[in-house]
Each structure stands twice: as C-alpha cells, then as structure tokens.
C-alpha cells in the first residue's frame, strides 16, 4: 500500500522497516508543513492512500519562547493539516499525538507547561478528527507511555543522525504504522467464540456453582471481570460474540442470569453452544448458523487440549495462545484485538451487526413456522432502498467489497478511494441498497458497480450482497430494478460475469437462475460471461417479495 511518512525528525529508518509497503519520505525532514501545504509536493503527488504525520514533541517545541507563541504555532500546524485533509478527501491522514519531555531541570514549585502542550495538541487533532472523516489519531504518546522514553528514544542516535527513536522504538512504531495500513487491506475477523470455565470466570460452574466461581469487582475474581469488560467492548464494536463450552447448559445459563458480577449476559451472545459435543463440531455449526467462514472466527479457550484439537480439525479458525498468568487476561485481550479485530473506525453498520444476527435467529424461527417459503418471504415485510452511492455511503461500500465472499459475482476488492474515483468516472456508477423488515434494519447490505460502453451495453463490474440477507431473492429484485433503470437510460444489453472462488457458490446459484443469457466467453478457470438483451425482457425469474424504493437517479452517467 502506498503511504507517505511526514515528520519533523528523520524517519527514513522507520520507513526502511516497512518492507511490505511503498513508503514515501519527504526530502529534508523539517519540511513537513511545506509538504502538506503544497499540492505538488512529493509526498502528496505520489498518490498515497495514507499520510502519516509523526510529530516529535521535543522538536516541535524547540526554540519556542514561552507558552503563547508555542500555542500559536500549534494552531497554525493544525490548520495546515485540516486544509490538506479538506483539499484531498481521498487520502487518510493519521496525525500523531505528541510526547514532550521536560525541557530543563526545574524546581518542584514550577508548573510543567509541556503537559499543556501535549493536551492542547491532542485536543486540536481530536477536534480535527471529529470534523474531518479522513483525519485519524495515531497515538504515539500512548506508545511512549506503554514502553517508556528510555526504551523508545535514543540519545546516541539523535546526536549521530537526527534519529529520535531507538532501533527497538523504530521497530515498534513501524509495526504500529503497518497495523494501520493492514487494517485497510485485510478483512478483520467477524466472530469471537469463548469457552466458559476458567476463561470467562475462574473455576468450574458445574462443580463450584454460581456462588463458587471466581468473578468479582475487586480482588482475584476481578481478573475475569476485567476480561469480560473488554469482551463486551469488542461486542459493541460489532464483533459477533458466541459461547462454545462443555457444560450442562442449565448450569451455565444460571451463572449468566444470576451472578451479580457477570458483565456479559445472554443477550450479548449471538450464539451459545453449551453441550458435551466436540468443540470442533460446535464451531462448525456456529459458522453455518451465522453464515460466516471459518476463517473469520477467533476461538479463546484456556484448555491447551481443546485449542490443539481446533487447530488440527479446523485449521482456518484462529486460536490464540491463552496467557499462562490470568492476571494478564485483559492485556492479552488487548493484543487479540490489535491482531485480529483492529479497525480504524467502528461504523454504525458494525455496531448493528450483532443485533442483526439476533434478528436473523428470529427470522429463522418464523421460517420454520411458515407453511411455505413464499408465505414466509411475503410475511417478512421486506423493504429495499436502492440508490446511487453518495459520498457518505462509500466507506461502507468499500467495506462490503473487502469483506463479502459468498454472494459476490466477481469478488473484486475496492478501497474507499477507488470507489470515490469511480463516482466521478464517466460511464461508471457505484450503487448501494439497504434492507429492512419487520424484525429490524439490516442496514446497507448490498452494493454494485455498473459500467457502460458507447454501444449501449452495460457491464456488472461488481454485484454483491452481505450473506445476512441471502435466501430472500433480494438480489433478483435489485437486478430487475437495475435493468429497468438501464433501459430507461437507453441501454439495450447487460453483460454479467461470474468469477468462481472457493466461497461464492451462492453467486453461482444466482447467475444460473437468470434466463435468456447468451454465453459470450467461457474461460479455463471457470470465469464465464453472459450477455442479456434487456430491451424488452428481464433475465430475472423470481417474483418480487419486497417493496423496493428507488431514488430516481439515472445511471450510469453518460460518456462524454
């Protein structure tokens, strides 16, 4: 991934550590504000998707006379960052917090103005981040606090080469920067499954009983309570939580219902497999029930035998080592978060996800009760809102292209920046749809990209939908509507491509139920392309079960 590293100290050595990415370093390391202000500067014209501003507090304050002039300079810097962010909405700016060591020996009576400066800077970038979607906080100060100045900085390197950080410190910073870049590329895990005994609480519920297990506000039992607090935070960020435990279900549920210090409650979990079956079997069932891949599951269990069994039988499931010292449970979980669930922003969609899985369970119950699938689908009262993707939708649309594997015709991944560019490309259009029904709002679950040529043919570059609304023929209805739009817009043919992957069987089923297509190319790796005449007919064979509302926008945009 292309990124630029701007700093008021020499960071070239940090860039050299980030071998997996293309990193641009401004020449002349003091020039960071000039680089930001000038759109033709090397770091901005290089086309990075992310720009990091690593600001050294000591250097920022060097040569300043007193508090007021320093604050004024900080304001100038912040304004400069905000202007750059406004001018370049497609670039993400990660601005570091600052650490300002005490400048001189001082008596105990004197106030430490460095603390003011750190605070002032932090408040400034927090405000900038709140008002600019593309400004993020890179918490360098937090890193200093965690490892200490004597570890992170090096006097020798400073005097020898203007290098502020120690070699170990540089490695640490490089790893954090890479984490931020990777979070934009790699799909994070979706689901955390937890064992119960000696994992969520100390002791064995079946033997010790609700009053006997270790779980408390203070003292030893607080190890598990603090762990549960962190897990709940993760749930609030939209990660699906589940339980996989060998226990009598009634015993375990009693603990969740009756223990006064239990943080997590039954409603926090989208699934609970509490029985005596092999855990591999239970986890496989969870993947099926929730319609997620094994590779999006993380499993935490204190028992090394269980961990090893899952690693052997379900190698795609991630099984972190459990800390030997349970005092480290909460900090262990901090690392689990960073390694598997790290995300730049927690979107509203993410937070709604667990609710959505719960609503799905209710839908499943209704489906079993309904006399026919048609009656069930009609009874859901589904509403589809279909429109051209506007600026605010693009983050979600990009996330969908990154994460959706099952109902995805072409599995092309796009960044938000790329989608933003498409929205201004003649002949191309990104569209999006949200779905709601009587059980709740599923949010924006559908996106696609259509491109047109000059001869009246439109091509589906991307057509995908989150698996949580699969099986309701929503995709058929959206394609039917899309075809109507294309026809109104004077297009006569639609080209549809299917690129097979290990996971997209649902997309294959969809293209196979379309009617009247002519295969125009059939490649060796199973990639197949059809063309449909859409002047009078629609390839969609399924009746419409939902009410579809369309924002009246003609698309795709005309070609010049």
């Amino acid at each position, binding site marked *: 991934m292309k990124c630029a590293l701007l700093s008021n100290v*020499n960071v070239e050595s940090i860039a*050299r550590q980030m071998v997996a990415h293309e990193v641009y370093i401004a020449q002349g390391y003091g020039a960071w504000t000039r680089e930001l202000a000038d759109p033709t500067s090397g770091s901005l014209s290089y086309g990075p998707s992310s720009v990091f501003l690593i600001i050294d507090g000591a250097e920022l304050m060097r040569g300043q006379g007193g508090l007021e002039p320093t604050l004024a300079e900080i304001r100038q810097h912040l304004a400069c960052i905000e202007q750059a962010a406004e001018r370049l909405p497609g670039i993400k700016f990660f601005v570091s917090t600052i650490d300002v060591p005490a400048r001189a020996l001082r008596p105990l009576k004197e106030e430490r103005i460095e603390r003011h400066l750190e605070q002032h800077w932090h408040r400034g970038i927090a405000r900038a981040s709140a008002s600019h979607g593309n400004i993020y906080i890179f918490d360098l100060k937090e890193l200093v606090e965690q490892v200490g100045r004597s570890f992170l900085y090096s006097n020798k390197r400073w005097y*020898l080469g203007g*290098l502020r950080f120690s*070699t170990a410190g540089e490695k640490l910073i490089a790893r954090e920067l890479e984490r931020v870049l990777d979070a934009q590329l790699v799909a994070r895990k979706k689901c955390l499954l937890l064992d119960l005994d000696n994992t969520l609480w100390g002791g064995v519920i079946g033997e010790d009983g609700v009053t006997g297990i270790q779980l408390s506000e203070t003292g030893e039992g607080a190890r598990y309570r603090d762990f549960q607090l962190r897990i709940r935070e993760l749930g609030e960020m939209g990660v699906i939580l589940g339980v996989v435990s060998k226990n009598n279900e009634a015993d375990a549920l009693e603990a969740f219902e009756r223990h006064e210090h239990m943080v997590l409650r039954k409603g926090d979990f989208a699934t609970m497999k509490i029985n005596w079956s092999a855990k591999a079997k239970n986890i496989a069932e969870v993947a099926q029930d929730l319609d997620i891949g094994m590779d999006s599951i993380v499993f935490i269990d204190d028992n090394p035998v269980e961990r090893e069994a899952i690693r052997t039988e379900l190698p795609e499931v991630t099984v972190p080592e459990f800390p030997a010292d349970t005092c480290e449970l909460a900090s262990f979980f901090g690392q689990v978060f960073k390694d598997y669930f790290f995300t730049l922003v927690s979107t509203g969609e993410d937070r709604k996800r667990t609710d959505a899985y719960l609503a799905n369970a209710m839908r499943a119950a209704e489906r079993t009760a309904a006399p026919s699938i048609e009656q069930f689908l009609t009874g859901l009262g589904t509403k589809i809102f279909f429109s051209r993707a506007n600026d605010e939708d693009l983050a979600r649309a990009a996330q969908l292209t990154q994460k959706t594997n099952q109902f995805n015709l072409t599995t092309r991944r796009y960044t938000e920046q790329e989608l933003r560019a498409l929205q201004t490309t003649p002949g191309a259009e990104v569209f999006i749809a949200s779905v709601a029904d009587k059980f709740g709002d599923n949010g924006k679950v559908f996106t696609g990209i259509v491109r047109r040529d000059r001869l009246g043919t439109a091509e589906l570059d991307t057509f995908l939908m989150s698996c949580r609304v699969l099986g309701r023929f929503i995709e058929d209805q959206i394609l039917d509507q899309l075809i109507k739009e294309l026809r109104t817009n004077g297009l006569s043919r639609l080209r549809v491509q299917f690129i097979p992957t290990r996971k997209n069987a649902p997309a294959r089923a969809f293209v196979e139920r379309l009617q009247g297509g002519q295969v125009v190319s059939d490649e060796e790796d199973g990639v197949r392309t059809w063309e449909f005449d859409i002047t009078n007919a629609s390839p969609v064979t399924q009746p419409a079960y939902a009410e579809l509302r369309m924002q009246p926008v003609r698309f795709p945009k005309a070609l010049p």
Partner: protein
Amino acid sequence: MEERLIATVASVLRVPKSTLTLHTGPGDLEVWDSLAQINVICEIEAEFGISIPVEQVTEIRHIRDFLHYLEKTP
C-alpha cells in the same frame, strides 16, 4: 562471537549473511549508507550490551572493528 556479529549486521541491512565478512564495511554495500551505519552500531550495542563512545564511531570502518569492543566485554 564473530558469527553472531555478522548475523546482527546482516539482519540490520536485510542482506544474506554470506554477503558479509569481517572485512566488509560501510561503502562496500549500497544498502550500508550512513543511516544504516548508525542502525548497525546501535543494534550491535543492544545485541551485545555494550556502548561505543560517539568519538570512536567514525573509526569503525569494517565489521572486524567491532571485535575490539566486544573483547572488552565480560
């Protein structure tokens, strides 16, 4: 000791150990520039728990020059 020294330098420069001997030094390899030289010195200090005085840094022209400091350590 010599092997550990070469391994340390190789890992800082991100080159195979076979490209280095005790007689290799800054200037012999393109990646071994002045910035890399600072990284090499600091990594060796950390790896062997020694401290090389700033005044003597310029005297280090080959990997073997580090041996002088390592022999002094217990």
